[in-house]
């Protein structure tokens, strides 16, 4: 007989923050960029908001020689530079930094894992962290199997069926494989060492407030659900545009390309949240079930008419903010004959009752004129009965969800211009986060790390979501691999992409939004 669930009479369920169990967070790759820019500032801000467990420690695991003190000093610099809250609270930092430790080892060094185990057990004794572990693998994906295997071998990952009084979890960052086959292989390797419930795949877009708001917007407002379908929606555009180039990530980008870096993961999360059916509850699996259903309903790309539905591009030299920038092939660690795409435009169809016949246009690119991520839903125009002469022609209503920057939601409607004649002018009803909520929202990683410590997996990608996405895009990658593009680079930095992308959408009688 199951023990009755304990309800704490002191906990105010609607207001109290959930209590995280004591635990130790071990960051593999702690001297890397992600730890400095995102993870440590996130932990600091969680501490500031009293969201870290009462008993907590963070251990950085890396190869470089360093003392605890040196690591703490470096993390102070990182938090000072990258925390969303400033200035740094000195008293809080003094307490928090005392919980940071550094462990030197190579990823393949058994002795290093044994000494890590001893260190963690000592910290359990000293700090009361009760054996609970989160292992954050902020390392190259090729090391995931090795590190997970070592953790398992040395008893640092527990079998949840056998060990009930403590838990262990592993966080990994995308990419989860580089195609369908490697993704399945990675999954098989990882799940030899841990269960799916212990594996937390971070897609940091899911940690953004604006992305989380998609569910609230769609399902906490009754007016939208009835028009959120093919009877009223003409088409959907999803754009992830960056004005930055690839920076110092040349080596990584040459292996990946933008389809793997952004489209296969972030954009598919946006698409699935935008297109999913209402879940039966806000339980993690119920939400992820609906997201996966959307991905599985996307029509496979017609390879016989590939060029009609998929366009790739690569930026050449151009101007960004009035300054000259080099082309992709001139960037550091990039081959001068590189065939890697820095731009993709796609047309997809979701073959289910809600969306059949509605084209979804996706575009993602580097070195575009501005940084913007948005979902734009264009509604069908009114019947051509009223307001059709030149002075008073109505425009399609457009609902835009701005993910970043200028986070918010706007609705374009038509309005009469005051005066005796009746010209119609589009106007925008605009909700902006920064106008309404002056508080700086938590960064994505804060929410995600906290949720992992709580064991809450809603905001993490599940294996079937990942594989459904790879199943869609692996044939595209294979087709591209068959032949090098003859026209690269095919758009100048600072422009909105290659002409072929305009042709893709124009063929359907639509046009890309001017952002």
């Amino acid at each position, binding site marked *: 007989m199951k023990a009755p669930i304990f309800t704490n009479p*002191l906990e105010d369920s609607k207001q109290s923050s959930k209590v995280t169990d004591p635990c130790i967070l071990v960051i593999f790759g702690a001297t890397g960029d992600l730890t400095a820019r995102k993870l440590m500032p996130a932990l600091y801000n969680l501490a500031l908001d009293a969201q870290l467990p009462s008993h907590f420690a963070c251990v950085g695991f890396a190869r470089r020689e360093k003392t605890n003190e040196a690591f703490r000093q470096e993390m102070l610099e990182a938090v000072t530079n990258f925390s969303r809250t400033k200035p740094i609270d000195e008293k809080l930092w003094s307490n928090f930094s005392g919980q940071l430790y550094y462990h030197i080892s190579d990823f393949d060094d058994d002795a290093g894992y044994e000494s890590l185990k001893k260190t963690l057990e000592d910290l359990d004794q000293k700090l*009361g962290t009760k054996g609970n572990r989160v292992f954050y693998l902020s390392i190259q994906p090729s090391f995931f199997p090795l590190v997970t295997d070592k953790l398992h071998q040395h008893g640092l990952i527990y079998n949840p069926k056998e060990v009930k009084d403590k838990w262990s979890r592993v966080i990994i960052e995308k990419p989860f494989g580089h195609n369908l086959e490697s993704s399945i292989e990675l999954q098989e390797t990882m799940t030899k060492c841990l269960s799916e419930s212990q594996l937390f795949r971070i897609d940091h877009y899911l940690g953004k407030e604006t992305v989380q708001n998609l569910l609230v917007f769609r399902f906490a407002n009754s007016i939208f659900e009835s028009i959120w379908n093919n009877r009223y929606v003409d088409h959907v555009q999803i754009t992830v545009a960056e004005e930055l180039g690839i920076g110092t990530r040349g080596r990584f980008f040459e292996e990946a390309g933008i389809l793997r870096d952004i489209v296969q993961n972030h954009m598919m999360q946006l698409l699935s949240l935008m297109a999913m059916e209402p879940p039966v509850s806000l339980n993690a699996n119920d939400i992820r079930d609906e997201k996966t259903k959307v991905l599985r309903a996307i029509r496979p790309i017609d390879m016989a008419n590939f060029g009609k539905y998929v366009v790739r591009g690569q930026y050449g030299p151009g101007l960004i903010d009035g300054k000259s920038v080099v082309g992709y092939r001139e960037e550091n660690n990039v081959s001068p004959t590189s065939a890697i795409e820095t731009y993709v435009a796609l047309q997809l169809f979701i073959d289910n009752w809600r969306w059949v016949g509605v084209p979804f246009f996706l575009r993602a690119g580097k070195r575009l004129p501005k940084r913007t991520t948005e979902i734009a839903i264009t509604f069908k125009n009114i019947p051509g009965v009223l307001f059709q002469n030149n002075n008073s022609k109505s425009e399609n209503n457009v609902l835009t969800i701005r993910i970043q920057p200028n986070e918010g939601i706007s609705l374009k409607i038509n309005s009469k211009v005051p005066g005796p004649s009746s010209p119609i002018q589009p106007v925008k009803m605009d909700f902006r986060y920064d106008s309404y909520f002056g508080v700086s929202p938590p960064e994505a990683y804060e929410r995600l790390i906290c949720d992992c410590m709580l064991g809450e997996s809603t905001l993490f990608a599940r294996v079937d979501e990942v594989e459904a996405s790879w199943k869609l895009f692996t044939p595209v990658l294979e087709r591209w691999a068959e032949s090098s593009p003859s026209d690269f680079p095919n758009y100048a930095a600072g422009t909105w992409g290659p002409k072929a992308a305009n042709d893709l959408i124009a063929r359907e009688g639509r046009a890309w939004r001017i952002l």
Partner: protein
Amino acid sequence: MTQTAESCKQNETKGNLKPSSTCLFNIIFYIENTASKASYQKFLDSLKKKFPCRAIFIVEDSESTADLLKIEINGQEGLKTSAACDQISIDCTSKTKDKTFFLILSYLLSDLPTYVIWSQDIVKLNPILEDLKTIATKIVFDPQTTSNLKDFSGQLIDHIEHTSCGITDFAWFNCFGWRELFASVFNTKERVDQLFHARIIRIKYKSADPLSNKNDAAAIYFQAWLAAQMNWKVNDVESIEGNKRVCYERFLHDTIVLVVPELSDESNSGQITSVEIEGQNGVHYLLKLGVKDPFVKVWISDSTSCEIPYQVVLSVASKEQLVIGDLFRRGTNPHYHNMLKLLYQTKWNH
């Protein structure tokens, strides 16, 4: 009424009134005298930095019977954003206060929640409050305005049970951090049982005037909340030289709660500084706030063992964030309601 409205128009000073382009809510402050307006204005100013709103101040000069009703309107730019936050001030006397409600109606922004901050003693009946209840989403009271906590609680319970708007008060916000902390420390059945069987609970709080019982509202509320959630019944309350001794009756033995003021400067008066629990079988909990920092150190032990002491951050949310957190929550908090029912059981000589 028409004459009054016309005279108001003549007195009306239009500042930079602009329609609020962004506004989350209306907030109405009903203040008994001009002297206390400054502290509420300061509170409003910090609130507006994060949450644009339209604010209406009604300041009643209860000692005057003059035929005065004055309105001043100021449009203010939000500090960080382009939001415009309006502030409307209405000055009235005991003679003209009945008319203020009708003036407010014309200034409220529609479709937005309306929160009322009522700074008068609720025990003193004021018809304006009844009018405001018809438009309020939530009303916030202030236990510092009353010397009779029992009647105060009774009135609040009456409002909760006969009004659709939510009810809350400032002392409830002020003990939020300690309530959250207790929920996180006593988070297992075992610990809750230890708390339930506590023999003595000692709560210390800061006070600029330890002999007077002033500023003990948060501490009283905190222990009442605890007792209400533990289903204890008040047996007796004694006040001795500023200290309070509350006896809670339970089945096998009573639980004694001591509320003890500690001398401190005016700025932190009311803040709870420590909670100590002596339980059965040598169980002992001590939660103590640091002298100048937001950390609470926690010591837990029993007759055979001692847990590793640890520090937690007491919720460092600012007052306006605490207020907003509760305001945005619909209805009346059931924990708060339970606590009031317990407070109503006996005299607190507050």
